[in-house]
């Protein structure tokens, strides 16, 4: 069933690829880095993938970063997605571009609060350790869970496991766990009141921790998996459900009912949620191979 769904989705992605080689969040919307990178990772047809890679190479900024789309005038968190896509398709063209992107990510500025008074205030208000920094959405801003997780995935995929920043990112993710387990954007508390975990943030954080070598018996991981299962029960966009399924598979905690639900959401054209991004995300979730080289034990 899933093989047929994936093949149908591959055709859909070929049909919805923009003339410039990229993909948008929705069919016929402007090409964006995230959708294009995810489509490349999702093993689209060879020709489509080649065009997607070329779009990524063309839209890389001279400083090595990527913005949200070709019109963006500054690099940001999406650099991690582009780097991941290029690292997973290693060629003579993609390697130097990925390296440049990695260097930009490693140098990406982030707000780190070290002043003791301010740090104490923030700890009292938000219950987080503001001296710990992961990665921000945009340079020189505060760190958040999703950009940190993606940067971590990219660094591990590049074999940069010993980077000090990677170790700190792992500590950052552990610090930002919501009460009861799982993650949200990166604010587990607001004035000491707990904010709920959300499925997408939990999924990407779990993927990142798997990449970084965390263990299944780690209480933060097991609580995250439990929370992810609970939050996936809500009605969700296909992309969220897909990343949830992928994270569960990577941690060998697959749930066939979630996969079945995802397959049921595929439309007659072969897509999910009328868009390439959701479709590529679903393909990754339903394929036999585990993404980001996370299949190793």
């Amino acid at each position, binding site marked *: 069933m899933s093989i047929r769904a994936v093949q149908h989705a591959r055709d859909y992605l070929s049909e919805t690829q923009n003339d410039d080689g990229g993909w*948008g*969040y*929705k069919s016929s*919307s*402007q090409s*964006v880095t*995230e959708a294009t990178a995810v489509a490349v990772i999702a093993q689209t047809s060879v020709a489509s993938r080649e065009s997607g890679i070329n779009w990524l190479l063309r839209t890389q900024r001279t400083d090595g970063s990527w*913005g*949200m*789309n070709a*019109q*963006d*005038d500054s690099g*940001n*968190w*999406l650099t991690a997605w582009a780097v991941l896509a290029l690292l997973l398709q290693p060629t003579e063209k993609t390697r130097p571009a990925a390296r440049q992107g990695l260097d930009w990510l490693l140098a990406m500025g982030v707000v780190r609060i070290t002043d003791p008074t*301010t740090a104490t*205030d*923030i700890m*009292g*208000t938000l219950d987080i350790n503001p001296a710990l920094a992961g990665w*921000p*959405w*945009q340079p020189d*801003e*505060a760190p*958040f869970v*999703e*950009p940190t997780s993606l940067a971590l995935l990219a660094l591990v995929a590049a074999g940069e496991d010993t980077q000090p920043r990677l170790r700190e990112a792992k500590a950052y993710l552990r610090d930002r766990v919501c009460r009861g387990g799982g993650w*949200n*954007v990166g*604010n587990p508390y*607001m*004035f000491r*009141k707990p*904010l*709920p975990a*959300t*499925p*997408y*943030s939990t999924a990407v954080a779990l993927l990142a921790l798997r990449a970084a070598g965390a263990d299944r018996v780690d209480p933060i991981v097991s609580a995250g998996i439990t929370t992810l299962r609970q939050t996936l029960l*809500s*009605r*969700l*966009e296909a*992309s*969220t459900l897909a990343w949830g399924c992928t994270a569960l598979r990577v941690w060998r905690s697959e749930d066939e009912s979630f996969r079945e639900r995802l397959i049921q959401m595929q439309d007659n054209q072969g897509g999910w949620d009328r868009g390439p*991004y959701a479709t590529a995300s679903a393909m990754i979730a339903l394929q036999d191979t585990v993404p980001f080289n996370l299949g190793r034990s």
Partner: protein
Amino acid sequence: MRLALLAGIGGGLFAVDRATQPVGFLTWAGWLARGYRRRFLDSPSTVAVVSAPPDYGPSLAACLAEGWNLANAPDVRGRRVLIKPNLVDHIAGRPTTTDARLIRALVLLLRQRGAADVLVADAPAFRKDPLPILDATGFAEMLTTLNVPFTDLNHDDTIRQPLRGNFMPGVDHLHLPRTFVEADIVISVPKMKTHHWAGVSLSVKNMFGLLPGIKYGWPKNLLHQKGISASVAALYASFPFDFAIVDGVVGMEGDGPLFGDPIPTGVLVMGRDGVAVDAICANLMGFAPGEIAHISFMAWAGLGLADPARIDLRGEKLSGLRKAYAPPPQIPLG
């Protein structure tokens, strides 16, 4: 003597310029001049205040229509109208979002008044996936029933738009959602609530939800880093909405914008001038507009009126509707 005079003038200008950093004297003087013109030369702003059923019951539609007429709302005939509610996040038991029943009544009113196209759009601040918010708040069912599209502005196509007024030094443009840029008429429909950083979150603060997450993240970190007053003023000066309707039927007091408590207030407040609408709302919530930094700053800079004497208030008297909202806790940062 002449040299001393010149040196004195030069020194004075230098001191003024230093005192008005980071924007500089010319920008500061421009805001000041516009503020004087707006307060003393331009015509008053009209704001309508109407009572509304505390349970968002059937008479809500008539109340909304009454306010719409009183407030000289824009002519929507043949226009593409974007409704921007506040869908910041859903916290069970907390009135964090604009009520779906008000949006329903507004959609029907707009259609009745001849709008060619009505859509609802927002970029939730804390969630990448808006569906759980739409489901939990009743928006999903309402939008489906009325066949109204919802646009997730976090993932929309974007268009680079220049900022006016130099309110956010160092930022001269933003990338905004195409759906917003291409709408003919934009209506800001926030919840009446307190906010721990902004004091209150009403029609002008509601426009934080325009910024796409794919560029600015979840929540919109750039705006918080640049400061609430500066960011709200920059957004309103550059991309003013056409009309505001504040959902004060059940407001939120205390620990807003997420963990505050419901406070039945039974009121809708509307008008074209977002600053005036918000100043009246702050008054209804028991706050002086001067207590709310971004409202007083925007009024001072001429982006709208906050002085009740310069606001043409229509509908109900404020005294009969005013509630003492518990103020939000203040974040002790920096």
